């Protein structure tokens, strides 16, 4: 798997059939191609999705994500189907796929064609983590690093994102460090997601939030299953959109 630098020219189309997978989600846009058997990708913010398809014809794009029908495309698939094909590229025997996105979390049981989506509440979504990072005035990707420095893990029981933040503030007042409160928040987040996950041997985690090692560590300790994470979990749906078509 290989990421393109932001301004790297797109791969050449000369003399072969050229298709890309384009995932325009709530916060980021991702494109993936398979070139010489290798997966290559680019990531940008949702509002700059156009830079991912410069010079690419509509008929060469298979789209997915929230904006799948708003961007040029030859065909589109939902994120659920894209996740199944994308995760299957790396882990063909995966039982469960958990896609933790910016606005929702999807749990797909590939064994019996079932899926559940949590989008009524922010507590198990990337939006909640952003909310917390915002409160501490730190970048989103610092949350995972803070977690790894925690000595204790306070209980944060609230299932509502907003009230969970109130509880975190109470823990700070009570003497827990910022690192410890962030770790407690990751555990609360992981418990919320784990309640959606059925019994299974292997669970594949995908989505941008999976890059947060604190959250993954909490999920590992709660789930106690074989957890698999692709090298670049954020581009799996873009890859899956492509693979669902070609």
């Amino acid at each position, binding site marked *: 798997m290989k990421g393109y630098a932001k301004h790297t020219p797109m791969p050449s189309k000369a003399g072969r059939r050229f298709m890309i997978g384009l995932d325009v989600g709530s916060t980021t846009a991702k494109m993936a191609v398979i070139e010489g058997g290798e997966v290559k990708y680019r990531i940008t913010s949702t509002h700059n999705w156009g830079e991912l398809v410069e010079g690419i014809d509509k008929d060469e794009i298979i789209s997915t994500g929230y904006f799948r029908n708003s961007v040029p495309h030859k065909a589109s698939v*939902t*994120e*659920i*189907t894209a996740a199944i094909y994308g995760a299957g590229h790396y882990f063909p025997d995966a039982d469960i796929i958990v896609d933790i996105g910016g606005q929702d979390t999807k749990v797909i049981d590939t064994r019996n*064609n079932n*899926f559940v*989506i949590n*989008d009524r509440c922010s507590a198990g979504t990337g939006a909640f983590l952003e909310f917390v990072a915002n409160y501490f005035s730190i970048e989103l990707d610092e949350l995972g690093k803070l977690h790894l420095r925690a000595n204790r893990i306070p209980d944060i029981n609230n299932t509502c994102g907003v009230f969970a933040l109130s509880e975190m503030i109470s823990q700070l007042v009570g003497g827990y460090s910022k690192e410890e409160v962030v770790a407690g928040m990751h555990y609360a987040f992981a418990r919320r997601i784990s309640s959606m996950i059925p019994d299974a041997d292997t669970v594949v985690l995908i989505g941008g939030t999976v890059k947060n090692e604190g959250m993954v560590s909490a999920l590992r300790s709660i789930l106690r299953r074989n957890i698999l994470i692709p090298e670049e979990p954020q581009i799996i749906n873009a890859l899956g959109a492509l693979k669902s078509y070609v």
Partner: protein
Amino acid sequence: MNVPKTGITALVPPEIIFACGGAPFDVNNVIPASKKYPRNKLCAWTAIWKEMLVNREIQIDSLVVVAGGDCHNALVDGQKVAMSGLPTHFFFYPFDGDPEYLESQMYRLTEFLGSIRYPERFKEVRELKKLGRMIDDRRCCGKISPAEAFSTLISFSDLRGDPGMFKRTIEAIREGDFELDNRVALIGVPPIYQDFHEAAQSLGLQIVFDELPYEFIRHEGTDIRDTARSYCNYTFARPLGLRINFLKKELDKRKVDGVIHYTQFACHHMLEDEVLRKELDYPVLTVQGDLPGSTPQQIKLRLEAFREMLDRL
């Protein structure tokens, strides 16, 4: 002649209300297009009819609340309506299906409504329900659109207050040819969205079975005794095992490819989801609605993903 209008909150035998000289009015039917956001709610269905009735935004002369054997939120919200001064009666189905208990409930209902003055209306309604079952059959063969069939079948709870006019409406339905490439059953309470069947259809899912509206056309009788012996098998009021066995037969008969289980936020039927998923040997999509209006995008995403899933099988 001034026909008293009797509101009903769930399945109350409309033949009895007509036979007592009244006209039933299913208060749920105004909710999907109501644009109401009720205060102090659990389930939006009961909360909205409660609020509209307390504020007299629905014009009825009395209310019959189905409080036993189905909706427990209605038991409380119905009492709030009663306290607002609207004559209200509580109707209970037996969990064990005892026909004599149900017969006694039906006699109490006739006392609340006055008395049976037009016994011939039992047969009139029974004939109309035959037409309803014909609509249901024709929809299952792709001759009537799922959305039009639903809008007709859901009206069988109150026959739109006028069996004669309703019959003419049904007879005016024109048949066509509708592709049924993904035959889906819709189980649970009806969706609170006004365009759910259209949304499913536009995303490639054709609903060929509506569980609750099917109950509206399934039960009938020519007198109270007879009617009690049919309605005592109203599946929503009975043990889950009986309902599941009934569903298995209907789904098999209709050769469905998948099942959509619609659940309503804060409705106890949501607790049945895991059992239904386990017992019904079909791909099952569970969706949950809350407030009325058009089908939201999040639900459409689930429908579309479900269709993609069925396409892959």
